[in-house]
């Protein structure tokens, strides 16, 4: 892989450490949030208490679908617009 000029200005290691910390913490937050929301909205509730929104049980919508989609959007924004060293 070729070096980029942005990276030659800063340290490649410093940049990669920053990226790792961001990615690792967002990953852990995603996992904990998804489990927590699913737990409070879905676990140990009788089926009558579960509301269905657009055909999706609410605990799945708020605990899985929305966090997952947000995580993908975050990955796209971070990958395309935030990470440095963009030169070809």
């Amino acid at each position, binding site marked *: 892989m070729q070096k980029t000029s942005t990276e030659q200005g800063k340290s490649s290691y410093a940049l*990669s450490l920053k990226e790792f910390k961001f990615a690792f913490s967002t990953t852990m937050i995603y996992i904990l949030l998804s489990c927590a929301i699913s737990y409070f909205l879905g676990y140990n509730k009788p089926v009558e208490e579960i509301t269905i929104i657009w055909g999706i049980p609410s605990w799945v919508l708020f605990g899985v679908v929305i966090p*997952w989609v947000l*995580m993908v959007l975050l990955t796209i924004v971070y990958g395309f617009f935030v990470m440095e060293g963009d030169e070809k």
Partner: protein
Amino acid sequence: MRASPVTLMVFVCYFVVLIGISFYAYYKRKNAKNFSEEYYVAGRSFGPWIVAFMWATSWTSGGTFIGTPAVYYAMGWTALLWQAGAGVLGMIGMLAIGRRISRFAAEHNCVTLPDLFVERFQSRLMGIIAAISILVFGVAYMVSQYIAAARILETFIGIPYMWAIISFAVIVGLYTTIGGIRGVAYNTLLQGIVMLGGSIVIAFIMVKAAGGLPEITRQLAQLDPNLITPPGPKNFLPLPTAFSTFFILGVAVMAQPHVVTRIFTVKNMMSLKRSGALISLITLVWFMSLFVSALAARALIPQIDVPDRIFPTIVLQYTGSVLAGILLSAPFAAVMSTVSSLIISTSGAIMKDIYQRNFNPNASEKAIKMTSYIATIAISAVVMVLSFNPPKFLQDIVMFAISGFAASFTVPIILGFFWKGGTPMGGLLSMISGFVTLLVLYAQPNPNPFGFNPLVWGLVVSAVVMVVVSKVTKPNDSAFMEKIFE
């Protein structure tokens, strides 16, 4: 259920195209200056789309179209929480470690995962142990994939099992050997598009046939309320298991040897960043599409004898014959891309990590070439022979292999490359202890203390061992450490 002649013809044409692509890659490779750089990492020249598809198709396997839809089908909505670890694939598998790993690999001429450890920790022993584990578990993993492919050929086309295995082995071995990683890459791009497009198409067809998502959910609730509420039928996914599964089906990806090495093929930072974003998008569309298809299938076909057959069944029952031929190729595409990535990884382990580094450091270009070819063919042959008499609990061995890779390699990758304190002994013992923890727990009557999977415990033990041992053992040469952490 058998496929129609038109379906079969489309299916066969698909393989002819794949072999053709491999020959094209072979001609592109013939004039390469450095054989192993080209054969294993394609001269580090790939752009975002190829990397993203190769990465995604290496991670997802035949199971994605065979075993996974069966889980969705059997467990209903809770299975989406089971799958949700996939949300982190692009972030943790590519963006988190991509810059560090790809730069380090390029600067130290690494072409395999063990190479990374040898160069970082300056420990040849670590390289050998990593290579042996890749070889053993990689072969087990591949056998399961061969069997999955042969089962489909056997069930839907009526080829006897033995011949199904042989023909499958010949096709995959041929196209991997001829094309090298570049052939695998071009094929994967085509196969990735088939898999992605196929999942979207089948999702539309199935949801429409079942009368829309609200209707599907209503039907499921009538069949069994557990299909709507967690933890699902038969106490499928208690919360600690859900938490652990995020690691097995998400975080573990950063330590799979055949996936990590995809990062080595990246051309530049731009490709790397884009491919990370693409991976997350592709896998989202992919899993969601397959998920709603399987839910619709449950509403339409409430009973099936072998849940593993649900995907091929809906393809043959609900799509036209040409489309069915293309869609049936999807599980094959998944199997083939995973198997060929694994063949390249395991033959790399033999050629580079065992033969070249320990027996013949000054091997000529020609010798390397011959060893690589022989290793590739030999592994294909061994896997073929092992597949003739499949062991009974194969799927367990495979889950064990994925967890085994993750338990041994995750911590040495994270703490080896992002923490200056890691020592060679710390790296070696963290790799071994993570793996041994997994092994010991799997041997217990209750392998999940407090409900958490052995992998979670393996990662914890491996991290603690890494830190503690590194504090009390001799670090690498300080000038060297300065250089790689500057």
